């Protein structure tokens, strides 16, 4: 596969990094064209160039990184033309490259308002290191500066002028207040006051009409006829997407610029992606780096045939502007009738804080912090994770006036809370790094990348390190085995985070040694629960427990039993006859199972693919009796025949069995549907059971038979079918996500803090705010379902693995012996 990336800015670089990480062993040819003379650098911290950081310090990766990863990087050589018909690009220097996929990451240019005189000497834009170099060269001859634009970048530029020694600097903003997109009027006033104290002069509501001067700038004239003398002017009035290449080759662009992309970041040409500030997603240009990185991730995953979607991005931001903290998160100013705001203002210290909460006082919607943004991360996470607010929400701003419990906020966050949104690092990942022995901030940054981009999350990372280490002293870690120093839940989070797909990858990333019979099935099960890939692919066959590896249950004597799926226990006479014929042909012992299906025993390993070929031809599919997976959904006959039946329990059981078939979990899962309260299907003894009521379905969870029988408990009553399935989705995925290996749902519930009330809160009331995520995770598995046996039957390479002797595939194991009992065979007794 060959990918060409146009643009080597922050987002273009991130795209390369992700492509390299994703490509793994599969060959990837990656060519990058950049307009600037140096490789991608940290534009967010451009002003630190004035603090003595060199251009090299700001590089995201040295040139050697590109060569080491086989990337051909052309610097100072912009692409001039895209030929979509032939799928080639041609550069300024005349290089033509063919592509399979093209990624446009051309970013944006400074928007220069159409005001006469902008071309005069002494007028600069603030965008690249070259811009800074030119400003620096010009600055000694200047004494009064002006910055056009009072947004984020404008204030950064003003800081640059102050750093260059131009103490008499004005910021000119067209709208009536500074940073109109991020903060409200009151906050803006405080900010203005703060900046004024620091020597910066602010003019708001000023419309620049002309840049005055002969050859060089001498001042600005405004629409209200006032004049501001200035001999250096920096324009920072916004950005405009670099979409000219896209336009020229006929890609769809927005009326006000930007290359139109879909949720996969594809442009109107499916082989061309656009990411970062040049992309127009849902009528929105994202002028921050974090959403750009997320776009890179989504585009790369799509190129690698994965399915992530970009569905917009939180524009929360925290900056230190000229020494003043400014933060805005979530919805900073919702309409007054949709929220209540709590405002705290301290004019003496120059701080302003505002939080917006839902009218019922339960959730945080967003807010603004000026002068002191220490609480930013915690508030952001509280809003993002829809955490229920304390009874006195003002404590979020003022701190609790009771006993101080430092760090309680951090520890209360769920594991999946995104701490570093630039690098997508969750709380779980950071805590893992710490428990893994990375106990300093530097170590954690190196190993998780958290805090390496905007640095805004650093305080929170520190808190997490402290909290995790504190917790470590108190409990013995629950780890999978000697090869993985993590619990199953931690492993699942890590594997998901890194999108790992094979046991080998997981071992490379998080384990040591060769693995063993304990961790291999755990990892294989997690992989199946996350992605539902074919379990014998990607070298994962030998990581499966022996039954899963041969997709059958090993029985005494070394032969296998075969269980075709019979959803809900309903089967046609024709299919019964087929099973009988196959059993006769291959000399199999037949028995009805407890789960309303038929087990066929005594099959030689090498007969399994042939048996399945015949079963599949007759319309059967795998019953997953060999896996820690959904087994059966038992049913009573229900309202179609039974005089007591309230609903059609068979149809619902079939629907449920077909939804969750093949679902792999920490342990086997059984289910049942009863058509009335007489409960003939014994639903209350299942991991999840459903009983018809007059009004709908009652859903019971966490029961089992086995050595320690336990009745299922009522999770929710009188549900319609759709809601019932939604709750089951959530319940099963929450179980899969959090249970220890080989723990049935009943045992899991017994260990769960808060027990059934907690579980009901999570599943029914969505108290963790993860319901949507759980449902989506389940839907992915449902969509990816394929019959494993069908794949084996159709794949000669896989079929080959089903022979007893590698060097005599046609021979059966001669040591296998059967005896006869009641006109069928049985395995010879072992000693």
């Amino acid at each position, binding site marked *: 596969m060959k990918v060409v990336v146009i643009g080597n800015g922050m987002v273009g670089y991130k795209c390369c990094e992700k492509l390299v990480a994703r490509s793994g062993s599969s060959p990837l040819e990656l060519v990058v064209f950049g307009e600037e003379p140096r490789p991608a650098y940290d534009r967010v911290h451009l002003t630190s160039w004035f603090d003595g950081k060199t251009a090299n310090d700001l590089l995201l990766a040295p040139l050697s990184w590109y060569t080491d990863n086989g990337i051909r990087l052309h610097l100072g050589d912009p692409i001039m033309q895209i030929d979509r018909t032939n799928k080639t690009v041609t550069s300024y220097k005349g290089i033509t490259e063919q592509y399979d996929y093209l990624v446009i990451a051309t970013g944006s240019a400074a928007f220069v308002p159409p005001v006469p005189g902008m071309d005069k000497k002494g007028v600069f834009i603030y965008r690249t290191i070259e811009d800074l170099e030119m400003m620096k060269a010009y600055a000694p001859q200047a004494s009064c500066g002006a910055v056009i634009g009072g947004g984020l970048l404008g204030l950064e530029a003003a800081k640059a002028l102050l750093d260059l020694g131009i103490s008499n600097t004005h910021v000119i903003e067209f709208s009536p207040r500074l940073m109109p997109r991020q903060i409200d009027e009151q906050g803006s006033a405080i900010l203005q006051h703060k900046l004024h104290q620091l020597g910066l002069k602010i003019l708001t509501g000023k419309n620049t009409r002309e840049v005055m001067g002969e050859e060089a700038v001498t001042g600005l004239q405004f629409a209200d006829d006032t004049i501001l003398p200035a001999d250096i002017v920096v324009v920072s009035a916004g950005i405009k997407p670099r979409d000219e290449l896209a336009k020229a080759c006929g890609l769809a662009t927005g009326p006000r610029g930007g290359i139109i992309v879909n949720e996969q970041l594809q442009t109107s040409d499916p082989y061309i992606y656009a990411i970062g500030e040049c992309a127009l997603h849902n009528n929105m240009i994202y002028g921050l780096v974090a959403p750009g990185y997320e776009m890179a991730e989504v585009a790369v995953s799509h190129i690698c045939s994965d399915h992530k979607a970009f569905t917009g991005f939180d524009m929360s931001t925290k900056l230190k502007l000229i020494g003043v903290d400014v933060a805005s998160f979530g919805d900073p100013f919702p309409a007054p009738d949709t929220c209540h705001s709590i405002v705290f203002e301290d004019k003496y210290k120059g701080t302003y804080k505002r939080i917006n909460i839902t009218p019922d006082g339960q959730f945080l919607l967003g807010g603004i912090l000026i002068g002191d943004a220490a609480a930013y991360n915690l508030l952001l996470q509280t809003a993002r994770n829809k955490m229920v607010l304390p009874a006195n929400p003002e404590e979020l701003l003022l701190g609790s006036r009771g006993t101080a419990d430092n760090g309680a906020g951090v520890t209360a966050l769920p594991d999946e809370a995104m701490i570093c949104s630039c690098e997508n690092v969750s709380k779980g990942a950071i805590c893992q790094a710490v428990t893994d022995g990375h106990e300093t901030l530097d170590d954690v940054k190196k190993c998780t990348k958290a805090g390496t981009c905007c640095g805004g999350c650093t305080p929170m990372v520190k808190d997490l390190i402290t909290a995790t280490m504190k917790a470590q002293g108190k409990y013995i870690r629950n780890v999978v085995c*000697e090869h993985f120093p993590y619990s199953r839940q931690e492993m699942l989070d890590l594997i998901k985070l890194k999108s790992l797909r094979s046991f080998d990858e997981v071992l490379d990333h998080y384990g040591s*040694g060769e*693995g*063993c019979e304990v961790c291999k099935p755990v990892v294989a099960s997690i992989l199946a629960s996350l992605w539902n890939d074919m379990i014998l692919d990607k070298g994962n066959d030998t*990581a499966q427990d022996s039954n899963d590896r041969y997709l059958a249950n090993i029985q005494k004597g070394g032969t296998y039993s075969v269980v075709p799926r019979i959803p809900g226990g309903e089967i046609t006479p024709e299919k019964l006859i087929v099973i009988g014929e196959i059993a006769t042909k291959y000399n199999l012992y037949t028995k009805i199972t407890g789960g309303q299906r038929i087990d066929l025993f005594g099959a030689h390993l090498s007969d399994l693919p042939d048996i399945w070929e015949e079963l599949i031809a007759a319309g059967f599919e795998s019953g997953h009796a060999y896996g820690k997976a959904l087994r059966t959904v038992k049913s009573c006959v229900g309202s179609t025949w039974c005089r007591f039946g309230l609903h059609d329990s068979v149809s619902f059981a079939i629907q449920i069995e077909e939804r969750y078939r093949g679902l792999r979990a920490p342990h086997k899962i059984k289910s049942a549907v009863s058509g009335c309260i007489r409960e003939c299907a014994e639903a209350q003894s299942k991991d999840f059971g459903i009983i018809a009521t007059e009004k709908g379905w009652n859903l019971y969870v966490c029961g089992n038979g086995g050595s320690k029988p336990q009745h299922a408990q009522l999770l929710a009553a009188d549900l319609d079918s759709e809601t019932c399935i939604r709750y089951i989705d959530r319940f099963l995925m929450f179980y899969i996500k959090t249970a220890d290996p080989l723990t049935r749902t009943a045992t899991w519930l017994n260990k769960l803090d808060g027990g059934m009330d907690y579980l009901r809160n999570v599943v029914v009331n969505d108290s963790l705010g993860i319901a949507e995520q759980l449902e989506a995770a389940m839907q992915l598995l449902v969509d990816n379902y394929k019959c494993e046996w069908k794949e084996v039957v159709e794949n000669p390479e896989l079929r080959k693995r089903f022979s007893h*002797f590698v*060097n005599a595939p046609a021979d059966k194991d001669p040591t296998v012996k059967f005896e006869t009992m009641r006109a069928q065979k049985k395995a010879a007794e072992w000693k």
Partner: protein
Amino acid sequence: MSTTHTTTGTWFFACKTTDVPTNGGVCVKYNDEQIALFFFARRNEWYATQNLCPHRRQMALSRGMTGTVQDEPKVACPFHKKTFSLKDGRCLSDEHECSLTTYPVKIVDDRVYINVAEITVMAEV
């Protein structure tokens, strides 16, 4: 090949290296005997033992899961998860269990050879 065996016996051709799944095992037929052959791809090591698990006398070790304990290569029987060292064949999970016979393995190009000098030791345990 890491093995302490003397290699005076005969080497017989078992299979191609590509016939053996990475980090897994296969069963090799040698006259009337069954030998389990294992490939540790990550460290490029090969091991061979008797295929019979001495616990319940089942021909199953080649279908077991391989792994390590403290860096010692091992296999777990699919029936009851007894584990055996592939270095010396001793049972790691039960000191009273019989040991496995192990065989030297060598690779020439892409061909796997097993040394069957001690093959009689294993016959009918």
